């Protein structure tokens, strides 16, 4: 039962698996995102309050969700690497960071443009927006810390610890709309029970969420190959791998 777990710790296996999975993830992502875009932009009915401006949700919500997911993956992978000394965990964490940071920037940008017609302002210092901005700073901090060390292994471990410490921010972002009087709207999809959105609006959104997740998987696999190579430059299997 544990053999698959040990396989995950093996760099050549991870490299090969990432190479094989990436095109599949990318293809599926393309399909789900295409459907989501077409259905969301053209076929979903305009919102009764916000008109067509609500369509920004089709990029805003998935990117915000992925910014949290990528950070959590980064922290968990780093924790696994620290606790069980599995170097591939550091590779996954390092690969996740720039992807997650880009999603955070996208979430902040789309949120800002959505805020203007919805609340009348491009920015507000409300709990959810502020903690999402903090998340961006945390990403930058983790990436800077990793690259500040001359010894890459030490940099990996320090970055992993910082990512874990910053993990406390993720539930704050998610629950901020519940805990505080926030300008930002409450949960629509992640509530238990029936989500408060009609099907014609919901399905494209779910598709975009899935699509962004698959896209993250694809880019993660692509970056992971680079990360594995950088950490395993001296190993024997690398010779065969880079010939192909």
């Amino acid at each position, binding site marked *: 039962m544990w053999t698959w777990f040990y396989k995950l710790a093996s760099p050549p296996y991870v490299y090969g698996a990432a190479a094989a999975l990436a095109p599949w993830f990318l293809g599926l992502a393309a399909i789900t995102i295409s459907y989501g*875009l077409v259905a969301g*932009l*053209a076929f979903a009915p*305009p919102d009764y309050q916000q*008109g*067509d*401006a609500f*369509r*920004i949700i089709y*990029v*805003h919500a998935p*990117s915000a969700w992925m910014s949290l997911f990528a950070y959590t993956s980064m922290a968990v992978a780093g924790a696994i690497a620290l606790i069980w000394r599995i170097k591939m965990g550091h590779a996954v964490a390092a690969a996740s960071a*720039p*992807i997650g940071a*880009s*999603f955070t*920037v*996208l979430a902040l*940008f*789309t949120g800002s*443009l*959505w805020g*203007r*017609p919805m609340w009348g302002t491009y920015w507000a210092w409300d709990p959810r927006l502020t903690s999402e901005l903090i998340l961006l700073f945390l990403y930058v901090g983790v990436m800077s810390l990793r690259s500040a060390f001359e010894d890459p292994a030490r940099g990996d471990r320090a970055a992993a610890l910082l990512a874990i410490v910053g993990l406390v921010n993720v539930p704050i972002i998610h629950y901020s709309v519940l805990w505080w009087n926030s300008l930002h709207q409450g949960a629509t999809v992640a509530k238990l029970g029936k989500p408060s959105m009609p099907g014609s609006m919901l399905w494209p959104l779910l598709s975009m969420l899935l699509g962004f997740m698959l*896209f993250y998987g694809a*880019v993660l696999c*692509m*970056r992971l*190959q*680079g*990360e594995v*190579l*950088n950490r395993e*430059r*001296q190993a024997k299997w*690398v*010779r065969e791998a*880079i010939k192909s």
Partner: protein
Amino acid sequence: MSNGFWSMGGYAGYVWPCFLFACVVLAWNLWAARRYHAAARMRAARALLMAAGDAS
């Protein structure tokens, strides 16, 4: 219908830049990942060449 589609009920100035920037971010991710992998391969190849050079 096509007229209403592009104007997004008057919100075009907000909606389309969002989707455009989303495309930019997704494209950047793909491009940056590919470049990172290529650079890693080059460095690995160079390391192997140097190791082979030392051995001979």
